[in-house]
């Protein structure tokens, strides 16, 4: 059972209370962008086997979107952080690096 702590209301929610929202930190492209940029934003995904940053919604709780860092190969959760973050907080990145020395880092 996957459990994530909502960074807003502090509730440790298990997955039936949550809705998954796919890869986080996608750079949005709109009018004026190239086809390749828009295609990349809309469809191409990292889909890594390992450390993954993703969007979740506390659907049956406070209803807010937040972000999480999780290992897709082990289902280990590294931490959650607010949806307003442009990139994963440095302390979370350091924590992941300590646990996964071979991790290529956030990019």
């Amino acid at each position, binding site marked *: 059972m996957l459990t994530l702590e909502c960074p807003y209301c502090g509730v440790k929610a298990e*997955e039936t209370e949550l809705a*998954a929202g796919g890869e986080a930190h996608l750079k949005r492209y709109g009018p004026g962008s190239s086809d390749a940029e828009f295609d*990349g934003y809309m469809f191409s*995904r990292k*889909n*890594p086997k390992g450390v993954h940053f993703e969007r979740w919604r506390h659907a049956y709780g406070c209803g807010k979107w937040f972000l999480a860092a999780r290992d*897709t190969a*082990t*289902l280990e959760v590294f931490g959650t952080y607010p949806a307003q973050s442009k990139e994963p907080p440095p302390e979370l990145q350091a924590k992941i690096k300590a646990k996964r020395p071979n991790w290529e880092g956030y990019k």
Partner: protein
Amino acid sequence: MGLKRYSAFAIAKEAMSYHQNWERAWRSPAPKPKYDVVIVGAGGHGLATAYYLGKNFGITNVAIIEKGWLGGGNTGRNTTIIRSNYLQDPSAAIYEKARSLYETMSQDLNYNVMFSPRGLLMLGQTEHEVRGYKRTVYANNLQGVSTEWISPEKVKELVPIINIDGPRYPVLGALYQARGGTARHDAVAWGYARACSAMGMDVIQQTEVTGVRVEGGKVQGVETSKGFIGCDKLGMVVAGHASVLADLAGFRLPIESLALQALVSEPIKPCMDVVVMANTVHGYMSQSDKGEMVIGGGTDGFNNYTQRGSFHHVEETVRALIETFPMISRLKMLRQWGGIVDMTGDRSPILSKTPVDGIFVNCGWGTGGFKAIPGSGWAMAELMARGQSPLTEEFSMYRFREGKFIDESVAAGVAH
């Protein structure tokens, strides 16, 4: 190289020596330094691709590399359903090609894949679903795929154990494909592996691809746990790990990997001789030749490579099926497992050239790949040998950029 054919005569002959002298079904050779074609992934789709490269195009200097064991991924984890009742023309073409190849597969491969065209029902349980399936029936008839819309009474006649008057999800009719059914999934992989081996191809198991060597935009070969293997053309046919392999070659795919689960009950006496899919409630069920009720459910919502799904999905599936099949409520479940499915945005597969010259990709079959194995292999082999195939034209990985979706998420509901 030629392997001895299986036949009643062969069984009688081997009985003389107490069945001690059967030769191995396929060879396990060490990899050669270079092949014309390397296929990564010895599941159904990869082996079928190799088989049709040899059979249809005479390309037999081929290696199929598998990180685990043959057919140990989704090929051995699905619910073995075969059907071709898709809405869109490109899908109907490739799935019907596959279904028709299943009809003669046991003879073609000299290997009993136990294809059982027992008939398949997709239940209409809401007015919207009824309208959707009727539309699919009309489309199928134009496509040359034989399906029909049948009444609730006919459903009850075909499936006596079904409850058609459920208060919440009554059965309002069904889309019926009489030549849909099931096959023995492992045997499909084994049969293709044996046929490939007989043509002189190398099936190399327990060998993981750790890198893809690309020079000047052209593929040179793959780095593996058994060293470098060179090739002129590379086929990536690895389902749930497609993104990982594409990353090694330096490009991205419109794919996300999710866990899909299935389960089987304890064996019971024969009670249902068709396949029933109930897409509104996320469940589908058939009875195996051993008597187990084989049940498939929905996917998890989050990226996952663990081949373990969430328990609540199993619970939802079973809860919904119990309403439609009240008599299964006291069945004990024997086993439950998960597989990693490669989902595209439009729920249709990708059979395509890639940004790297010489690399071809076959993935994105998502929750419904088993039924497509022979058609997928047939089309992929043509694509790799000739550079194009009428069956794969619409399934390019660039269709998303062009907005040319093959939208089957609506047509197929959820289950495959």
